[in-house]
């Protein structure tokens, strides 16, 4: 039997369907691994082995009875702890919401439950998806499985750590300024922020309504596409939900990149911000490989990173403060230091500045999307640096501006971070692929072609 810890969703699903693997055996193996190792990495905020085993037994009975539900039937997953799971607290990793028991499932949870997936627990996050890594909260921050002295990215920290560490094959995260793609970059896994509105946000604690996206972290591109197939879809009760057909994200995976026009946004990582030399080299090597595979590479220019970042943060801070104002009045001492200061940034943004930021956003999105007349996808950096030490507060703080993820929250475009190699210190390097709205299938296709031509997603950390 293959190492169960690093089984892909696609392979696990097939073994489960054909009854070569028992859901109980699979869940038990991962439970044992989590119990053995997660005290070093803190991926789980609330580990739920009893629920997992009950889900696994149910899945086993159904599959043995001939009622296979699909590729996630009997497959373990985790939820970032801002996503509701009925009957469990949704804490947002915060003292303020320690007792906030969810009365129902989020839409993504409903879909995973209906697919017969096995719930393993709630994953660590940055407090309220913005304040971390913090050491002054009721739970410790997650740590990088490639080197536990290093930052694992955030805010979907535990989701990234758990997939990289072989605790889970897939986990749900959220992304408002890069929070799925940041841990994907730092932990060496695949993280997709789909187009705004493709995945329902209902039942997910908001950070900023107009920038929040739900997405998945997985170890392979195919698994990520499978997860998006499952969780995408219109939700009439989510006012941001896109009313259009979704799915079919794996259909074109193997078509390769022959003739695909790739626009490189090089100024993000060479001029606007100078990325780490190893990161630049990894991205340039990836572009050369994609060209060798038949893609047409051309450079494009868009707005400077600083303008995108200012637009993202102005909108994010304004909308987030609207959510947090009550707690800032009543219990400001209950926030961790990082979340409090970041959220306070929205207290005195003028109404006109917020509205004007959304007007700038519309223009930036239109200008960016106009490039897709000439290119099919774009490639750029995700993080500018490999993971820094988690105890170096200044370096951690610098990871927030030193990234090129926020532009795609501003534009709402699909954007995927994936492994692109390793630094000399053994830490993951990453690249980012983005597309026009609702072209997730093409983004996955390009990512899959690169993944198949490299072996980065086959390399795993030693946890001992």
């Amino acid at each position, binding site marked *: 039997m293959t190492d169960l810890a690093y089984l892909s969703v696609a392979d696990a699903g097939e073994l489960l369907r054909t009854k070569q693997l028992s859901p109980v055996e699979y869940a038990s193996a991962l439970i044992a691994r989590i119990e053995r190792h997660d005290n070093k990495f803190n991926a789980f905020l609330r580990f739920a082995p009893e629920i997992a085993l009950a889900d696994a037994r149910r899945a086993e009975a159904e599959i043995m009875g001939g009622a296979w539900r699909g590729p996630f039937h009997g497959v373990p997953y985790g939820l970032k702890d801002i996503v509701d799971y009925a009957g469990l607290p949704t804490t947002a990793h915060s003292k303020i919401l320690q007792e906030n028991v969810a009365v129902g499932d989020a839409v993504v949870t409903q879909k995973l439950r209906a697919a017969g997936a096995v719930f393993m627990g709630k994953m660590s996050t940055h407090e309220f998806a913005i304040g971390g890594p913090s050491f002054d909260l009721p739970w410790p921050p997650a740590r990088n499985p490639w080197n536990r002295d290093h930052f694992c990215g955030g805010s979907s920290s535990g989701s990234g750590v758990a997939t990289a560490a072989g605790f889970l094959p897939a986990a749900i995260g959220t992304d408002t300024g890069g929070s799925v793609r940041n841990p994907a970059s730092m932990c060496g896994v695949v993280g997709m922020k789909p187009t705004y509105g493709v995945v329902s946000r209902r039942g997910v604690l908001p950070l900023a309504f*107009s920038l929040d996206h739900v997405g998945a972290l997985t170890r392979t591109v195919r698994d990520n596409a499978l997860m998006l197939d499952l969780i995408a879809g219109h939700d009439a009760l989510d006012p941001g939900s896109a009313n259009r057909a979704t799915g079919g994200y794996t259909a074109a995976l193997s078509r390769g990149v022959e003739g695909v026009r790739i626009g490189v946004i090089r100024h993000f990582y060479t001029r606007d911000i100078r990325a780490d030399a190893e990161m630049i080299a990894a991205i340039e090597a990836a572009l050369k490989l994609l060209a060798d595979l038949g893609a047409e590479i051309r450079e494009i220019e868009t707005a400077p990173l*600083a*303008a995108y*970042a*200012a*637009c993202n*943060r*102005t909108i994010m*801070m304004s909308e987030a403060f609207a959510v947090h*104002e009550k707690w*800032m*009045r*009543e*219990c*400001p*001492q209950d926030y961790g*230091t990082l979340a*409090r*200061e*970041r*959220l*306070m*940034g*929205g*207290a*005195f*943004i003028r109404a006109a*500045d917020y*509205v*004007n*930021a*959304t*007007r*700038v*956003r*519309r*223009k930036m*999105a239109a200008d960016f999307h106009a490039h897709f007349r000439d290119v099919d996808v774009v490639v750029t950096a995700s993080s500018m640096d490999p993971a820094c030490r988690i105890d170096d507060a200044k370096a951690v703080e610098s990871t927030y501006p030193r990234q090129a993820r926020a532009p795609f929250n501003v534009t709402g475009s699909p954007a995927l971070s994936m492994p692109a190699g390793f630094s000399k210190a053994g830490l993951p390097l990453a690249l980012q692929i983005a597309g026009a709205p609702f072209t997730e299938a093409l983004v996955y296709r390009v990512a899959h072609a690169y993944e198949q031509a490299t072996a980065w997603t086959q390399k795993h950390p030693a946890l001992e």
Partner: protein
Amino acid sequence: MTEDALTLDKVRSMAEEIGMTRLTEAHLQQLLRATNGARARRALLPFADLTPADEPAHVLMLARED
């Protein structure tokens, strides 16, 4: 628009006006830094390029009655 430099006393007064009366001195220092940061970000936004007809990114959209 130019604004006066913020001081701790000024930010305390602004906080009290919106009901944030439970902030410690350390919290007020955080609020001062955060507000200065937000103001600095505004300077990076190309507001001057907006024309009167430029709409916000999200406007109210009502469902069509079928």
